[in-house]
């Protein structure tokens, strides 16, 4: 149980795909001008990564090593197509505003990276848990960035006005440069948290050494 929690939680902070591993960045900046988009993108991404890791982990012993990359791509592309078609059918507005970024999940390096580094070696349960951690780690960062950008840039959250009447929306944050800026601050924040955690772990190690 502890091991599962470890696998799950590393995606959230210490190995966060966006903020630490710095992969799969494109969609993180592009779709975060509103919280609704961020939730949609996060959900789509989590769906694809969970099923891709699960399927590949189930078949890991049957997949020949030389042909693994094309097989991974086909599996990922199949689930991406499902999400794309489902979204077009049930949530056409969301699909419209996410645009090309849904089909581009297929080349999102987070999925390829996790499948190659983790799912192709571990059992299905671990793979699914890892995927869930990575997917949620991706989603919280997306929602966090989107919340900052939407509140400051439009004075709203999920499309509902929340700022006081006198608030003048700062247009900068909804435009592309604002996305880069907020993202930079998020990386900086996460690095700070990680540095703090490392320092605490080191201190604990030293005190335990002294005690013994």
């Amino acid at each position, binding site marked *: 149980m502890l091991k599962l929690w470890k696998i799950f939680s590393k995606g959230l902070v210490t190995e966060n795909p966006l903020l630490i591993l710095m992969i799969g*960045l494109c969609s993180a900046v592009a779709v975060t001008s509103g919280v609704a988009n961020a939730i949609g993108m996060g959900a789509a991404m989590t769906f694809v990564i969970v099923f891709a890791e699960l399927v590949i982990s189930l078949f890991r012993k049957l997949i020949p090593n030389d042909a693994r990359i094309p097989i991974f791509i086909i599996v990922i*592309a199949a689930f991406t*197509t499902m999400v794309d078609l489902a979204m077009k059918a049930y949530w056409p507005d969301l699909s419209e505003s996410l645009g090309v970024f849904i*089909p581009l999940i*297929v080349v*999102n390096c987070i999925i390829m990276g996790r499948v190659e580094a983790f799912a192709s070696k571990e059992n299905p349960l671990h793979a699914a848990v890892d995927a869930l951690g990575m997917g949620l780690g991706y989603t919280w960062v997306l929602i966090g960035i989107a919340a900052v950008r939407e509140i400051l840039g439009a004075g709203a959250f999920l499309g509902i006005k929340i700022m006081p009447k006198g608030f003048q929306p700062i247009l900068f944050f909804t435009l*592309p440069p604002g996305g*880069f800026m907020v993202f*930079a601050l998020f990386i900086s924040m996460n690095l*700070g948290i990680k540095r703090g955690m490392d320092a605490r772990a080191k201190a604990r190690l030293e005190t335990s050494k002294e005690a013994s």
Partner: protein
Amino acid sequence: MNLASIFISALLIDNIVLMRFLALCPFIGMSVDVNKSVGMGLAVIFVTVIATMVTWPIYTFILVGLDLKFLQILVFILVIAALVQLVEFFLKKNVPGLYASMGIYLPLITTNCAILAVTFDVISRGYNLIESVVYAVGVASGFLLSLVLLAGIRERIKTAPIPKFLQGTPILFVSTSLLAVAFMGFAGLIK
């Protein structure tokens, strides 16, 4: 829409990196120095154009004809992956000089989302083959331009005093943000 305006808007107004946030991974990863970034940019131009020239006819004549449009994502990514491999083999055997300067970037290009995005764009915008190729050259040149700009900034950043909390990657995104502000000046260039 005439070809010049397609090119200019793809190159500057809708710059693939700064305005549409595509290809950020190679943008951050490959902009370490100016020479390398030029090599990477040229390789991207080359592959994007070839990929567009191959996927456009496949979609227009095969997928539409057989009513298999839903396979677009799957077919395009496989075609691009295979194509990059072929280009790599071809260059290695026939143009070793070019391979030596460009070869190491080629495997990275398969996962460059800009290329896949271009092939989807030209379909959804309904461009014909010539317009598609012009668009592909424009987008890929836009990538080269922003990559070289960031690489230049990075060489300056190396010696600059940077606040501790922004050291490393955060400062790169702050620089990118400012570059994007500059590029917003191009908006409205074409009516």
